[in-house]
Structures are given as C-alpha cells and as structure tokens.
C-alpha cells in the first residue's frame, strides 16, 4: 500500500504547490487593464523595472529603482494625458539577482503581466537574454545601464538604451589616455561582460592612437587582492593603468597601487565613477580619472535639480545610474504621449523617433536603438570630490545646446519638472 500512497502524495504535492502558486499570482494581473482600451478617463500604464535587489550589486539595483520611482511619481503628479485619457503610471519592480536565469523568469513574469514597457535590466548579463522575451512579446525595453553592445545588436526592434555603450565609452577613454600624454598603458579587466567589453574597446582605441599596451592583466568581480597583478604591471612601468570593472574592485586597487609605490595614473569607466570608489579608495583615489556617459549633472540644465529632488525623496545620494533610469522612463512616457497610446505596438515606432531632452542627454536613438552620438565626460577625483575635466566624443555636447532652443516650444512632452514646483 505504501508505495501507492507515496506516489499519490508526490503527484498531489507537486501539482498543488505549483498550481497554488499559480493561483496566487492570478489575483494580481486580474486588475490589469487591456492596454489601449482607454475609453475611460484614466488609463493605468504599468511599467516593469528589473534590477538586482539582492547580491553584491544590490546597492546599484536600489539606486536604479529609485530613479524609476522618481520618474513615475513625477509623471503621475503631472497628470499626463495619453490619447485623451489621464494616465496613471505604476511601477512593477522585480529582482533578477543579476542572474541570467532569474532574469528570464522575471522577464516572463512581466510579459505575463502585460506591462506596457520595461525599464532595465541593470546588468548586460541579464538584459541580453531577457530582451528576447520582450522582443517576442513586442514589449519595448529601455535600459539605462546595460552597456554591452550586444544588447542592441541582436536585431531586436524593442531594445533601446539611453546610455553610451561600451564601444563608445572605451573609444573615448582611449582617446583621453593619449590626450593625457600617456605613452604606455597597462589594461586590467574583471572578466565580466562589462569590464571585458570596455577594456577591449579601450585597448583597440589606445593602440590605434599610438599608445603602447605593455601589459594586459585580469582579475574578477569578487577579488580584493590585486597585488600580484599590480606587481607585474609595475615591472613594465606604464604611465597609466586602465581598469574595466566596478568600484568594489577599483577602490582597493588604487590603494594597493599606492602601497606598491606605483606612480602611474588610474583610469576607469563609469563603474568606478561612484561615491563608493572614493570611499573604498580613500586617499589613493586622489588624482585618478574616470568617465561617465553623458554630461555631468552639474553642467546640465536639469542636473542639479535632479540631484536635489533625488536626495530629498530618498534621503540618500545618487549611486550611479539613477538619472539614466529616470530618463529611460521619461523617454518611454514621451513616446506614449506622441503615439497617443500606451499600446506597445502603437508607441514602439514612436520610441525609435525619440528626440527627448532629458536629464542626462538629448536622447535620440540610432538604427540599433543605441543612444546617438553618446558623449562621454571625464572626471578626476580631487579633494574627495569628482571634478569635471572635459567632455569628449559624440556631437551631443553642442547639440544639446542647439536642441534646447529648437525644441523648447515644440513637443516638450514632459514639462520641465521645474514648472511643477
């Protein structure tokens, strides 16, 4: 008898745990309105947001979500009208744990919930597999932080990015290294998709500009000890050490450079352009260079204001990508407004034609869905602060100025938040 019972038990347990979970979920999307059916005075527009909320990058994930949340709340406060109905935006935050497998599960969840659009994911590693699901479902996706070029090169019309990608950034960093008078350079990367991509592009650009790459060393995104590779680099005496990776490694790395008596300057991408880098690098961070896509917040018309708003709302500083994620939401809302519909099929074509003056840049997309002429700004750590050095690459710098005059009276879909307050 026993076996029969156990067999039954298994099937029952399996079936019930699964279906029970399924039913629980059922309750939520039941409230989802059919997109496009906007006869009523209010349309609910649901926007998915995905970033890792657990794990080592959780602080960045939270930052991204805060950026999206701020945008959503402002859109709601503005009382934007889409297709004649008042739009109410809702954010569906999901955690992908920076794990590709979780990334697709969560993406499927958003597809099921029939969200009108997706912002994210944070990491290229999860964004790329998820983008296929969004593409198959025809849901537009705008990432504010996935910088791996592959993301927009898969032929998916739904994939957009409001940040310069690694190719654009690596190229500019290479040019900058030459401009700084460096003759020889050592390249270190953390073997992640991001770090490797950035370092490869940097190496190409640097070599093209006549720089000598004297050492290529590698670490990983969990390492804390870099003395072995730094010692090796020291023996080659480069003028500059380039690092493709994140702040958690970059900070200790500059410290260990100082301890080993390495005089070379340190240059990195957006991953090390964070308050965290300064905290972890301490005094050794002084004088080092890093880059951020776009222009510095302070230089941008809406930058300082965004910073204040963000600090006031969340009681914490901006970590890294929040302004880009904010812009990603705004760009999406802007396309919906122009299309007069939140139906993905209807506003997707408009998304491609975006010309939106955001916090971080004048957002226009090229044929791949990448930010057109993404400008990259360089910074130097000075006196415990990030000091703006210059903006390189892309025609965006002057374009922003010109565009402002041009587009000011035109659509101006989202009135500058200043008007509101």
């Amino acid at each position: 008898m026993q076996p029969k019972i156990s067999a039954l038990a298994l099937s029952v347990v399996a079936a019930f745990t699964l279906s029970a979970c399924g039913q629980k979920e059922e309750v939520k999307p039941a409230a989802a309105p059919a997109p496009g059916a906007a006869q009523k005075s209010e349309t609910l527009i649901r926007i998915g947001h995905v970033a890792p909320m657990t794990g080592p990058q959780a602080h960045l994930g939270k930052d991204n979500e805060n950026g999206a949340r701020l945008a959503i709340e402002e859109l709601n406060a503005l009382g934007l009208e889409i297709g004649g109905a008042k739009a109410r935006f809702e954010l569906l935050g999901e955690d992908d744990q920076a794990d590709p497998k979780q990334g697709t599960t969560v993406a499927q969840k958003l597809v099921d919930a029939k969200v009108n659009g997706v912002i994210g994911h944070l990491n290229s590693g999860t964004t790329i597999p998820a983008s296929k699901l969004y593409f198959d479902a025809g849901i537009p996706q705008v990432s504010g932080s996935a910088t791996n070029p592959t993301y927009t090169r898969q032929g998916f019309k739904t994939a957009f990015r409001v940040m310069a990608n690694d190719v654009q950034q690596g190229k500019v960093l290479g040019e900058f290294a030459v401009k700084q008078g460096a003759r020889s350079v050592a390249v270190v990367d953390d073997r992640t998709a991001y770090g490797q991509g950035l370092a490869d592009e940097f190496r190409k650009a640097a070599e093209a500009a006549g720089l000598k790459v004297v050492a290529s060393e590698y670490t990983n995104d969990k390492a804390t000890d870099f003395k072995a590779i730094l010692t090796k680099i020291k023996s080659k005496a480069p003028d500059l050490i380039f690092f493709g990776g994140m702040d958690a490694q970059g900070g200790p790395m500059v410290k260990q450079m100082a301890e080993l008596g390495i005089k070379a300057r340190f240059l990195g991408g957006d991953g090390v352009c964070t308050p965290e880098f300064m905290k972890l690098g301490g005094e050794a961070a002084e004088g080092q260079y890093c880059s951020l896509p776009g222009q510095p917040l302070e230089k941008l018309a809406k930058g300082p204001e965004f910073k204040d708003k963000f600090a006031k709302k969340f009681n914490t500083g901006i970590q890294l990508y929040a302004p880009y994620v904010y812009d990603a939401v705004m760009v999406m809302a802007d396309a919906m407004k122009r299309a007069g519909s939140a139906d993905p099929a209807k506003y997707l074509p408009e998304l491609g034609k975006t010309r939106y003056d955001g916090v971080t840049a004048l957002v226009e997309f090229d044929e791949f869905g990448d930010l057109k002429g993404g400008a990259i700004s360089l910074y130097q750590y000075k006196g415990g602060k990030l000091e703006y050095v210059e903006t390189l690459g892309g025609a965006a710098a002057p374009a922003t100025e010109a565009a402002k005059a041009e587009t000011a009276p035109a659509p101006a879909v989202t009135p500058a938040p200043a008007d509101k307050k």
Partner: protein
Amino acid sequence: MDIFLQQIVNGLVQGSIYALVALGYTMVYGIMGLINFAHGEVVMIGTLTAITVAGSLLAAGMPPALAGLAALIVATLLCMALGWGLERIAYRPLRNAPRLTPLITAIGMSIILQNLAMILWGRNYQTFPPLFPKVNFELAGVHFTAVQVIIVLLSAATMLSLTLLVYRTKLGMAMRATAQNPAVAGLMGVNSNRVISAAFVIGSALAALAGIMVGAYYEIAHYQMGFMLGLKAFTAAVLGGIGNLLGAMAGGILLGLIEALGAGYIGDLTGGFLGSHYQDIFAFMVLIVVLMFRPSGLFGEKTGDRA
C-alpha cells in the same frame, strides 16, 4: 629581482591569512571529519563586527590602539560564541547522521549567516577604520606596509601558540585522542562533546583574528567576502592534508605563493596563452596535481583504509 621578491611578499601575506582560516577547517575536520562550510562566514562576521565596534569607538574619540583592542576582543568573543552555537545547534544533533547531512546543514548555515549579515550590515561595502598607522616601507625595491608585517608576525605567533596548545596541553591531548578514536578517547575519560566544542571555539577565534587582518589589510568588507576566502582556505587545508595543523599552515602559505607567482609569471611562461585571468584556478590545478601523487595531501597521514 625586486619584482620577484615583491611577489613573494604578496604571496606570503595572502598565504598567512589563508593559513589562519585553514586552521579552523582543519581542526574541526581532524576531530570530527566534518567540512564546516560556514567557517568562511565566521570570518566575515568577525570582520564586520570589528568594523562596527572600532568604527563607533573611534568616532567616540577613543585612541586607535584601544579601539582596535576592543574590536579584537569583541569580535573574537562573538565569533567564539558563534562557533560554539553553530556546533551546538547545527552539527551536534547530526553526529550520527549520514555523512552528507552535516555538509548540507553547513551550506544552509552559510546561507543563513550571509543573509543575516546582509540584513544587519546592509548590502554596501564597508570600509575598515584606520586602526593601524599607515606606514610604507621600502627595502631593496620591495614595498610593504606596517599592516602586512603585523599580519605575518601575528599569524606566525598564533600558529605557534596553537601548536603548543595542541601538543603541550591536556586539552590538546584530549583533542588528539578524540581525533584518533572518539570511542576509545571517551573510555579514557575524555568528554568528546567538550573537545569538539573547544575545537569549534578555537577555530572561530582564529577566524575572528583572520577576519580582522583581512579587514585591516584590504580595508574593505562585505557580507559575501567569507565565501571565496573560505573556499581558498579550505583548498589550502586539503592541499596540506586536511586534519593536520602543520599541513594547514604550509598549505595556506603555499597557496598564497602559488597565486602570487602564478599571476605574476604564468603569462610570460606560456607566451600569453594562460594569464592572470586563470589566477583563481592555479590553486585548484596544483591541488589536483598534488592529490594525484599524494592522495592525502602534502602532510596528510596515510589513512586510506579508513575511507
């Protein structure tokens, strides 16, 4: 030459830390044949506790030396309590369970401790407060810091005293007896529960010490830092012959040196095919090669028949 010496110094410091952590694995394994997977997390808790204590005392205006001492005491006591509790709650009830059962428990405890730490200390990286003077020395082109010197000296002293404890005291004798044969040791009046508890407590105290060193050295801590460190230290313990104190120390130092020299020279030796991207697997490769020829590790006794 100075580059080579520098790599030796790098490896030695890293190896001392591995050795201290490896001792904790090896003591527990030697006595009860258990891989305490959560040991790395004890190190992490030690580092984070020290950061909190020292940080708040420094902020309250206490001189660094005193704050450091207080942090050391509090972190060590807390970790000892943690080690005792781990054994008591998680492992003791499983003494006679199938061999893999405590391994899964250990993995579970590791997950629990990591997530508790994340809730308590947050997800952000923590910086270690400046307890030690920032002094850089240079000797024949080799750079090293005061902290590095302290680490090597302190771990050497710790290992020496541990060896004395195990080979010169009554508790040590009881430990060795229990490791040999728990039943017979019991007949000779050894309370094996107390001995096992003692092994956990001592191992955890070493973990706390290692944690503070890691923290002071890299000046960075994070709730996930324990896992990889634990794994490397465990590799070191196996390399030396798990269950053997001398083996753990030698294995630790050796592993540190292999990593430093590997990262430094393998690229040139293989014409760029293998480079420092393979740093993390040199350890494992050496381990596999060593175990192929000496299946019980470098210093392990031949115990094949007990398998």
